[in-house]
C-alpha cells in the first residue's frame, strides 16, 4: 500500500517558504481532522483556510497581533523557533474514517497533537484513538456534551457547549420579556441529526428548568427539498420567538420559504452553523435582515483581534470568517500555544501545558471570556454572544456590554 505524504505536505510547505528562514529543525506537526468532502465540506474547507492562515501567522512575525501568543514571533520560540505545520486529513464526515485518519496522523505523520473533527461523532471516535496513543486532542467546535464526559485525559475542548448556549438564549429571552416584549411562545425548529437534536434538547431542558414551555418543536431532515410545511406550521402557531438550528442549505431554504409564505416571527434566532455561514449571507442576506445569531466571533469592532483576523482571512479567501470557522481556528491556536509553552514535542508535556492553559480575552481571536480547562477538559470560560445581521455583516448586539450596535426588533427580514 503506497501511502505517500505528497498531498498533505504540499500547502504547508508553501507557507513555510514564505516566512523568514529562522527554522531550526523539522517543523512541529499538528494533525487537523476536517470534513473536507461530504455534506459538511463547505464548513471543512472554510476551516482549512483559517487554519492555514493561523499556521502562517504563527510562523511569521505579526506585530499587529502582538496581544495574542505566538503572533509577534516567527515559529515556536520555546522550541528554538521551529515552524508549526498543520497536517490536514479528510474525515469525510464519517466516524470510522475519522478514526482511521487519526491513527494515520499519529502513527505515520507523527503529529504531536490533534485538533478539530467538526462532527461530534468524528471527534468522538478520533479522540478515542488519541486517548489510547496518549496524544493530546484539542477540539474547537463540537458541541455534544458527552465528548467531555468520558473521563478522557487527553481531550480538551475550547468551544461553548449545549448548556452554555441554552443559557445565552434563555437569558436573552428573559431580558426581552423584562423590556415588555411578548416571549411566551417559543418555537424550536431543528434539523434532526446529532447537532440539531442535542442543541434543541438542551434548550428545551434549560427552558423547562426556568419554568418556560417550548410551544412548538419541529424536527426536520436537513436535506429536505421543501420546508414550506414547517413554515406553515409556524405561521399557524404564531410563536413569539423562533429558534432555528440549521445547516446552511436548509437555513437558505427557510428564509426563502418564509418570504414566499409571507411569514416572519417577531424574534428570529439562528443557532450559529447555517445562519453564520458566509454562503447564507451572500445568498439570502437581503431577505434575512435582523436575524439574530449565536456567535462567539464578532468581527465588527475595529481594532479587535477578531476584526484583524477576519480582514486577513478575507484577503486570503474573499469570504467573511464565520463563527464555526473562528472557533476551529481558536482551538488550533490553543494547541499551538500549549506546544510552545511545553517547550517540547513530548505529548505528556503538551498535555500538562494544556491543563495549565490560562488565556485572557485579549489573547484570543474570538470573544470567549478566556480559555481555562476544568478536570474534564472543558473550557470553563467559553461563552457566546448574540449578533444581528445588518446588511451583509453580523454586528454584536447582546449582551449589551459587548455590543457594538443596538438590538433592533422585531425581525425585519425583507422589505
Amino acid at each position, binding site marked *: *500500500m*503506497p*501511502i*505517500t505524504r*505528497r*498531498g*498533505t505536505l*504540499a*500547502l504547508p510547505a508553501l507557507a513555510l517558504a514564505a516566512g523568514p528562514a529562522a527554522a531550526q529543525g523539522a517543523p512541529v506537526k499538528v494533525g487537523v481532522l*476536517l470534513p*473536507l*468532502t461530504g455534506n459538511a*465540506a463547505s464548513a*471543512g*474547507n472554510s476551516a*482549512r483556510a483559517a487554519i492555514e492562515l493561523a499556521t502562517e501567522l504563527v510562523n511569521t512575525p505579526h506585530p499587529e497581533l502582538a496581544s495574542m501568543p505566538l503572533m509577534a514571533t516567527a515559529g515556536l520560540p520555546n522550541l528554538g523557533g521551529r515552524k508549526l505545520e498543520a*497536517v*490536514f*486529513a*479528510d474525515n*469525510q464526515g*464519517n*466516524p*470510522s*474514517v475519522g*478514526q*482511521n*485518519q487519526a*491513527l*494515520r496522523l499519529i*502513527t*505515520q505523520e507523527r503529529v504531536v497533537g490533534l485538533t478539530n473533527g467538526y462532527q*461530534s*461523532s468524528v471527534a*468522538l*471516535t478520533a479522540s*478515542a484513538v488519541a*486517548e*489510547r*496513543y496518549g496524544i493530546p486532542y484539542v477540539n474547537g467546535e463540537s458541541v*455534544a456534551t*458527552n465528548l467531555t464526559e*468520558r*473521563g*478522557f485525559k487527553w481531550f480538551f475542548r475550547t468551544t461553548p457547549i449545549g448548556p452554555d448556549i441554552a443559557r445565552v438564549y434563555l437569558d436573552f429571552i428573559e431580558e426581552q420579556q423584562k423590556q415588555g416584549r411578548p416571549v411566551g411562545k417559543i418555537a424550536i425548529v431543528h434539523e*434532526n*441529526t*446529532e447537532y*440539531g*437534536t*442535542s442543541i434543541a434538547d438542551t434548550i428545551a431542558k434549560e427552558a423547562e428548568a426556568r419554568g418556560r414551555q417550548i410551544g412548538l418543536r419541529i*424536527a426536520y*431532515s436537513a436535506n429536505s427539498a421543501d420546508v414550506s410545511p414547517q413554515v406553515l406550521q409556524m405561521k399557524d402557531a404564531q410563536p413569539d420567538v423562533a429558534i432555528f438550528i440549521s445547516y446552511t442549505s436548509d437555513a437558505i431554504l427557510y428564509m426563502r420559504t418564509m418570504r414566499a409564505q409571507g411569514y416572519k416571527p417577531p424574534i428570529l434566532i439562528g443557532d450559529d452553523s447555517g445562519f453564520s455561514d458566509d454562503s447564507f449571507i451572500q445568498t439570502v442576506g437581503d431577505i434575512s435582515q435582523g436575524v439574530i445569531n449565536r456567535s462567539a466571533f464578532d468581527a465588527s469592532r475595529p481594532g479587535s483581534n477578531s476584526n484583524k483576523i477576519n480582514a486577513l482571512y478575507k484577503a486570503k479567501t474573499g469570504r467573511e470568517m464565520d463563527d464555526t470557522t473562528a472557533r476551529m481556528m481558536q482551538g488550533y491556536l490553543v494547541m499551538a500555544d500549549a506546544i510552545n509553552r511545553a517547550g517540547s514535542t513530548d505529548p505528556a508535556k503538551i498535555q500538562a501545558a494544556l491543563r495549565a492553559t490560562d488565556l485572557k480575552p485579549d489573547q484570543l481571536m474570538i470573544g470567549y471570556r478566556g480559555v481555562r480547562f476544568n478536570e474534564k477538559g472543558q473550557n470553563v470560560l467559553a461563552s457566546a454572544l448574540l449578533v444581528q445581521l445588518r446588511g451583509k455583516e453580523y454586528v454584536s448586539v447582546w449582551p449589551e456590554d459587548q455590543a457594538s450596535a443596538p438590538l433592533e426588533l422585531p425581525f425585519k427580514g425583507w422589505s
Partner: protein
Amino acid sequence: MAMTASRGAWGRGVAVLGVLAVLALAALLPFALQDVFHQRIAALVLLAAISASAWNLIGGYAGQVSIGHAVFFGVGAYSALLGYTLFEWPPIAGAPFGILISLVFATIIGLPTFRLRGHYFSMATIAAAELVRILVVNWPLVGGAVGLMGPAVPRSTLDLSFTSPRPYYWTFLGTLTALLLVTHWMSRSRMGFYLRAIKGQERAARSLGVPVQRYKYYALLLSAGFTSLAGSLYALMVGFVDPDSGFGILISVRMVIITALGGVGTLFGPLAGAVILVPLEEWTNATFGGAGTGITYVVYGFVIMLISRFAPGGLAELWRRLQAAGRRHAA
C-alpha cells in the same frame, strides 16, 4: 469433467493444502506489516470483505440485488452497542441478538419484496432501509440522531477493545474464513445450484421444481445474519455508531460496489474487491484528502469507472480472461 476420481481427490487435496497455506499466510500478515495504520487497513479490508461476501449470498448467487443491506449491518452494529448502553454488556454479547433481529427483519422485508423483479426489488430494499434509518434517527431509546457509544475505556478483555489492530484482524479473518466456508459449501450444494438457477431464469427454475421464494428466503436469512455480524464487528472496532454510519445508504452501496468490482456470485470476488477498493479509498484519502479538493473521490470514482468499463464482470472476469489467455499460450 473428464477428470478421473483419483485425480479429482488428488486435486482436491492440493486445493485444500493451498487454501490452508494462504490462510496461514493471511494469519501471519499482521506480523509482516509493522505499521499500525497498515495493519488497520488490513483489518478494514477483511471487514469490508465480510459484509460484501454476506451480501454476495443474496445479491451475487441468487441475483437479488438488494441495496438495503445496511438494515442488517446497522442492526448488528446497534445491537452490539445497545447492549452496552442499556445493560452494560460487553459489546460482543449483543451480536447474537443482532443476528436474531436481522433474521426477523429479513423475514419482514424479504417475504413481500421477493415478488418484485429487478429494479423494483432494489428500490424496495432502498426504501425499506431508509425507512428504518429515519425511524432510528427519531427514536431516542436507541440513541436517536446522536448514536451509541461503546465503552470509552475497556473495562475488561471481554470488551474486546484493543489499541492494536491485530486482534481485530484475526477476529475478522476467522469470521471471513467461516463465511467463505459456508459459502463454498452452499454453492456446491443443492441450494447453490438452485440460487444460480433462480438468478439465471426464474421461470425455468420453477418449472424444474425449484421453490423459488423459499430459496431466496434462505439466502436472505444467511446473508442477513452474516451482514449483521459484520455490523457488530464494526461497532466493536470503531466503538461508535450513528444512523448514518450504521444504516446509511452508502453502507449498502459499498457492499454492492465491492462485490461487483471483484466478481458477483464468485467465492473470492468480494474479497478481491475489498483488497482493491479499501486500500484505494485509504490511499486516495491519505494522499489527496488533506488538500480538501475532493480529488480523493475523483480518482476513486475514476478507477471504479475504468474497471466497470473494461471488465463489466469485475476482477473475476479479468481473471478468467487471463486464465483463458494462459491456456491459449500453453497450447
